[in-house]
């Protein structure tokens, strides 16, 4: 990016609070002049902290903030040509609308060439004249549609009007950058929609840079030129709304930026990806056997009569949404969210397919084996998949601290004595890579599979083992096997990390 077009750049900005909490971690971003940039993320992701550092209310622990190429990292807020619209407006309650808007102008000093007492030229500063202030205030209030409100008490204004005063108060100073900290969060839904359009229009008219902070993905998508998706103080993805929506770089972004189906998947051939038990053609090229995430937007799932699509499914729920129906389909135990104008009945068997271009295949950072399709059989085992070929003895009591299993096989809470029947409970099962043990003796493990890939990563091998039911295990081990070897897979009880996918209370036994 050309440095001249950048108005603000944040260089390796890092913010650590005194309690050690890292709010912003190595934040690196350039913002172009006139751009509408949105920092998007859940609460606690560091977006507001970033904004506060640009405004000058908070200083970075390390890193630099540049404005027009000049370092403003430690410049106090009152010297920055930047203005803020605060989340709860922060209007001065003792001043009326006019005085609130004129506040910044009255603080302003204009340099001019004057003479000192000896008659030598000297830069002096003068206030803006009352006429100039009047004119500017009137203009700013006109922009926000509050022309006749100058003398009103701010407390007597509605939320929407207060919001407009807050915007007028900021833009009247003609800042180079306008910072907006969740400005619409306190408004009701209808008002929010209207203000979104107006803000966009204002941005177009004023031609200045807007930096907008929100947790509302819809707001971000409808207004921004560029969206910065944040998580835990770090940038996940930067891009246009279309790019972020259609090509999320990872499952987090995809999940945050709207409703989507996200699945664990494996590349099974050239531009062929397998998920939900079916093989789909796709457009992204990844190495064979690579573990990936796929994202399918609900509107991209195509529903056919049984047998005509790629995989079969069953209608599990149906909600009428006006212009179309929203369905949840079940493929085995996995859910598929989709939309259609056609009406299907609950329980009806259908078949689904997705166009190759609508399957977004994403790099998966492999840190552990994850099985979303695991469940408990109620007899002390955790089962992966439908076929019941993979079954590990598991410790159910790990699901609830201080619990035990009674003679009926129920989980009993020691404190409340409540009983839970965990038979058929859906489980998210994770196993660390180095805790998957491979054995030559096929009788030694809980299941068996064939090694389909082998990589040497520095000090150990990483194998992918595929079972007959096509579940994959990735194992980190120093021992050598060959591709095609059949091995037994063993995981010790304590290395099976179980977590319930529904609330524990749904399994409570009525007595």
């Amino acid at each position, binding site marked *: 990016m050309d440095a001249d077009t950048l108005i603000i750049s944040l260089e390796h900005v890092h913010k650590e609070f005194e309690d050690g909490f890292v709010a912003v971690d190595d934040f690196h971003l350039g913002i172009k002049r006139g751009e509408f940039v949105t920092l998007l993320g859940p609460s606690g992701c560091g977006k507001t902290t970033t904004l506060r550092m640009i405004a000058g209310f908070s200083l970075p622990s390390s890193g630099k903030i540049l404005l027009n190429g000049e370092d403003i990292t430690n410049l106090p*807020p*009152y010297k920055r040509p930047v203005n803020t619209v605060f989340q709860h407006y*922060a209007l001065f309650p*003792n001043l009326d609308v006019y005085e609130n808007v004129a506040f910044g102008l009255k*603080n302003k000093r204009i340099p001019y060439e004057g003479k000192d007492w000896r008659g030598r030229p000297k830069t002096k500063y003068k206030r803006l004249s009352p006429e100039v202030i009047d004119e500017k205030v009137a203009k700013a209030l006109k922009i926000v549609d509050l022309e006749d409100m100058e003398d009103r008490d701010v407390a*007597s204004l509605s939320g929407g009007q207060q919001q407009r005063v807050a915007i007028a*108060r900021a833009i009247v100073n003609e800042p180079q950058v306008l910072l907006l900290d969740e400005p619409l969060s306190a408004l009701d839904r209808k008002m929010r929609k209207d203000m979104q359009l107006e803000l966009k229009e204002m941005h177009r008219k004023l031609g200045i840079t807007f930096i907008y902070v929100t947790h509302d993905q819809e707001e971000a998508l409808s207004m921004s030129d560029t969206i910065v998706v944040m998580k835990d103080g770090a940038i996940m993805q930067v891009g246009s709304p279309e790019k972020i929506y259609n090509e999320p770089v990872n499952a987090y972004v995809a999940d945050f930026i709207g409703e989507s189906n996200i699945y664990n998947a494996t590349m099974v051939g050239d531009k062929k990806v397998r998920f939900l038990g079916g093989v789909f053609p796709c457009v992204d090229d990844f190495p064979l056997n690579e573990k990936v995430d796929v994202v399918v937007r609900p509107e991209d799932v195509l529903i056919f009569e049984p047998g005509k699509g790629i995989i079969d499914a069953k209608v599990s729920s149906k909600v009428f949404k006006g212009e179309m129906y929203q369905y949840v389909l079940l493929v085995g135990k996995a859910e598929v969210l989709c939309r259609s104008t056609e009406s299907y009945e609950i329980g009806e068997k259908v078949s689904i397919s997705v166009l190759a271009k609508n399957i977004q295949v994403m790099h998966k950072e492999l840190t552990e084996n994850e099985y979303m399709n695991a469940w408990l059989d109620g007899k002390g085992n955790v089962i992966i998949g439908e076929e019941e070929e993979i079954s590990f003895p598991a410790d159910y009591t790990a699901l609830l601290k201080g619990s035990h299993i009674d003679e009926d096989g129920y989980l009993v809470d020691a404190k409340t004595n409540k009983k839970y029947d965990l038979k058929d409970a859906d489980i998210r099962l994770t196993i660390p890579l180095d805790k998957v043990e491979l054995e030559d003796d096929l009788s030694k493990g809980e299941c068996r599979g064939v090694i389909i890939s082998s990589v040497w990563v520095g000090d150990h091998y990483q194998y992918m083992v595929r079972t007959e039911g096509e579940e994959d295990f990735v194992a980190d081990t120093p021992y050598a096997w060959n591709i095609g070897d059949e091995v037994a897979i063993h995981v010790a009880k304590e290395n099976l990390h179980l977590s319930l996918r529904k609330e524990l209370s749904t399994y409570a036994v009525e007595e």
Partner: protein
Amino acid sequence: MVRRVRTLEEKKTLAVRVGANFYIYLLLFLMYVPVLALVIFSFTGSVNFGTWSGFSFELYATLFQDEEIMRALGNTVILALLSSFCSVVLGTLGAVGVHEWKRRSKAVAESLTQIPVVTPEIVLALSLVIMFVFLGNYVYAGFGLSFWTLLIGHICLSLPFVYLSVKPKLLQMDPALYEAALDLGSTPRKALYQVTLPAILPGILSGFLLALTLSLDDFIVTSFTRGSGLLSGAQMIETISTLVQARIKKGPLPPQMRALTTLIFLFVLLVVIVVTILMTKKRKKSHHHIDRRNA
């Protein structure tokens, strides 16, 4: 049938209301007996409190001619205004500053503030005198009780209450207001005047009133910490409290005090009425402002 039950209930609530109001006014009357008696008997020249010797303004005339009382009154007012002013400045700055402190040091400051609040006045006064005596004995021999020690005593009396009435206003203040002022080009010092001061002004005012009340009414701290000075010149400073106390120890309440009490009572009544009217007006105030640019 239904109607009769309702009237019975109405009668019952009416009886409760009448009874309750009777109780309130009776209690009020009992509380006001000394004050009312003072007011009534201020309009008679009789030296004996309780005997009426015809209507006259004699006591008011002698009140203003009595130099000792006038001096004491002057001392009392000067001391109250001065000590309240110092308390307001110190206490407001203290509250604003401590508000920015970290949790632990804030807790220390708060407990320091609580000491004079929970300590009885007489212990406070004694501890101050002991320190002044200690200073005179061991640090600087010329040090003795004076107007300044009296002023310090009165500031000690009211300072924590100023702090405690400003603090809640700071807590109620939106911290974003201060940031908004900085954002709009105010320096931190300017923001203090433009934003913080208006927000805490009601607290400062009620703190000032409280300080005045405490100082005007005080006897213990005054009699412990006073030296010579003010209008009393080379003599021990007398305030209304110390003067009246010395007199009533020897005999009946000086008759001029009836006139003085009446004047104070009327003044307080006037203030209460004005404040009440202002409050109701403010509540009813519509949002019609005068255009300040035409003004």
